[in-house]
C-alpha cells in the first residue's frame, strides 16, 4: 500500500529493510548487553572462575551442589521467600485501601499524591538512608516515642527495660524492618496500578447494582474485585519481580545481618560473587532466582493477554 506511493528505491523507501535498520540498534544492545551476559552467567555457574583466575574451566554442577549444601545459601533462599511474600501481600492490601481513598474527591489532592508517591519517585537508596537513621540504635525516633509512652526503658515496661529496641540488631526485628521499608517503597507503584484498574470499572455497572439494592460490600465482592482481579495480579507480580531480585533495602539497612538474618539471594550473590570474587559461586546463586522470574513473567503475559481478549 503505502510503499508504492513513494517508490523511488533506496533504503529510505524500502519498508522491510528500513524496519530492520530502525530496530537494529535496540536489538543489538539487548543481545550484546543482556543476552550475552546472561549466557555467560550460566557458563560461569558451571565453571570454577574467580576474579583472580577468570578462565572458564567447566566443572559441571559443582557450584549448584555447593550452594545447596551451604547453610547461608539456604537461609538466604528462605529469607527471600519470606521477604517477598510478606511484603507484597501487605502491599496489595494497603494499596487497595489507598487507591480507593485516592479515587474520592478531596482537597490538596496534588500535594497528597506527591507525598504518597515519594518513596517510589525518590531514589530508593536515598530514601532507605532516611530509614537507616530512623532505625538508629540510640537516636531512633520510634524508640523515643515508645519511651515517651512508657512502653520501653523502665522496669515494668511492656517492651523491656532497655532504652532501645535495636531494630536492625535483633534478627526478628531486622527482618521486620527490611520488610517494612520494602512495603514503603513498593506501595506507591502498586497503588498507581490499582488506581488505573479501579478507574476503568464502568460507573453505570456499579450504579445499576446500587439501584438494584446491592449493599456496598456486595458491590465490592461481586463487581469491583472480579473486574480488577487481573490488575491486582499485575501489581502483585511486578512487586514480586522487583522485590525478589533486589538488594538495595537489605544492603543499605543491614548488609544481610545480623548473622545473615536478613540475607537474601541477591545480597548473598553480591557478597559472594562481587565482594568475595567467586564469580562461579555468585553466578550459580544468582541463577536460583531465574526460575521464579521466568514463572512470574509467564504469569504477567497470561494475565495481560487474558484481559485483552475479554
Amino acid at each position, binding site marked *: 500500500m503505502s510503499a508504492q506511493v513513494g517508490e523511488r528505491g533506496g533504503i529510505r523507501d524500502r519498508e522491510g529493510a528500513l524496519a530492520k535498520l530502525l530496530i537494529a540498534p535496540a536489538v543489538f544492545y*539487548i543481545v550484546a548487553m543482556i543476552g*550475552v*551476559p546472561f549466557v555467560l552467567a550460566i557458563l560461569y555457574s558451571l565453571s570454577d572462575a574467580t576474579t583472580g583466575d577468570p578462565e572458564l574451566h567447566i566443572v559441571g554442577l559443582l557450584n549448584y551442589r555447593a550452594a545447596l549444601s551451604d547453610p547461608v545459601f539456604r537461609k538466604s533462599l528462605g529469607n527471600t521467600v519470606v521477604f517477598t511474600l510478606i511484603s507484597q501481600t501487605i502491599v496489595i492490601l494497603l494499596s487497595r485501601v489507598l487507591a480507593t*481513598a485516592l479515587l474520592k474527591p*478531596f482537597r490538596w489532592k496534588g500535594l497528597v499524591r506527591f507525598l504518597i508517591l515519594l*518513596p517510589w519517585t525518590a531514589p530508593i*537508596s536515598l530514601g532507605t538512608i532516611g530509614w537507616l*537513621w530512623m532505625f538508629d540504635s540510640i537516636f531512633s525516633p520510634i524508640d523515643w516515642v515508645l519511651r515517651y509512652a512508657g512502653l520501653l526503658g523502665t522496669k515494668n515496661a511492656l517492651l523491656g527495660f532497655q532504652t532501645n529496641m535495636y531494630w536492625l540488631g535483633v534478627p526478628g526485628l531486622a527482618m521486620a524492618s527490611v520488610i517494612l521499608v520494602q512495603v514503603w517503597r513498593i506501595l506507591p507503584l502498586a497503588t498507581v496500578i490499582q488506581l488505573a484498574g479501579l478507574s476503568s470499572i464502568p460507573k453505570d455497572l456499579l450504579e445499576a447494582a446500587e439501584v438494584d439494592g446491592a449493599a456496598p460490600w456486595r458491590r465490592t465482592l461481586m463487581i469491583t474485585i472480579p473486574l480488577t482481579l487481573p490488575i491486582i495480579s499485575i501489581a502483585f507480580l511486578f512487586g514480586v519481580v522487583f522485590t525478589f531480585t*533486589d538488594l538495595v533495602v537489605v544492603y543499605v539497612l543491614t548488609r544481610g545481618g545480623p548473622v545473615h538474618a536478613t540475607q537474601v539471594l541477591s545480597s548473598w550473590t553480591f557478597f559472594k*560473587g562481587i565482594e568475595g570474587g567467586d564469580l562461579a559461586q555468585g553466578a550459580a546463586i544468582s541463577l536460583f532466582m531465574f526460575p521464579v522470574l521466568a514463572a512470574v513473567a509467564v504469569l504477567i503475559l497470561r494475565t495481560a493477554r487474558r484481559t485483552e481478549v475479554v
Partner: protein
Amino acid sequence: MNPGKIARRGGLYAILAGFVFFSAFPFYWMVIATFKKDHDLYSPLNNPFLFNEPPTLDHLRLLFTQTHYVTYLTNTLLVGLAVVAITLFAAVPAAYALARWARGWGETLGIGIFLTYLVPPTILFIPLSRFASIYGVQESLWSLILIYPTFTIPFCTWLMMGFFKTIPKEIEEQAMIDGLSRFGAMAKVVLPLSISGILTVVVFAFTLSMHEFIYALTFISQSAQKTVSIGVPTELVRGDVFQWGPLMAGALIASLPVAVVYTFFLDRFVAGFTMGAVK
C-alpha cells in the same frame, strides 16, 4: 451534611493522613536532621521531632565544601544525559518500526524486548563486571553509561511503541503522497507529533539512571567517580561514624527535584506495566 456523611469524610481524611505520614515521614526526618545542630541531634533526651536549639546551616556547608557531593551530582547528571542520548537513539526508531510494521512479529518482538527489562542486575552484574575489566572501563563513568541502557532501552521502546500506535497511519500516507520518502514521513511528520512521548522517554531514562544503585555499587569504588545514589550511602560516613546531618541533607537535596518531575510522569510509567490489562 448528615452525620453519616461527616463520619465517612472523617474516615477518608484519617486514612489519607495515615498513608501520607507513612510515606513522607522519612523525608520529614531528613529535613529535621539537615537543619539541626549536632548537639541537639545527638541528645537522646531531646524531643527528636522538633528544634530544641535554633536551626543551623552547618551541615549543608559541610556537605558542599568538605565532601565530594557536588562531584556526585555532576557525575549523575553526566551519566543521565549520556544514557538519555543512547536510549533515544536506540529506543525511538525501534519503537516506531515495531508499531508500524507490526504484523504479528512486531508485537511479539516488542513484548520480548519488554521482558528483558525484567532480567535483574543481580543476575547480570557478575558477567558484566568481567566485561568492564576486559574493556578497561571499570572504575569509570563509562561502565555505567554503557550498562544503564540495558534497562532504559527495553522499557522506553515498549512505552514509545504504545505511543506511536496512537498516531494514525493516514498522516504518514498523506505525507508520502505529498512527496516525502518513507523515512522522511517518519522523521519530519511523525516525530514532531511525538514530542510528548519522547519527553516521557527522556524523563524515564534520566530518572531510572539516577535511581540505579546495584550496578554503581558493583562497578565504582573510587569516590570521585560515584553517582549520587551510591555516593551518599557509601561515602558520607567517616570511618564508622555516620554524619547524619550532611548525610540526610545529601539524600534530601538529590531526592526532591527528581521526585517532583517523576510524579508528573508516573501514570505513563505505570501504563507501560499494565500492558493493555487496562483499557
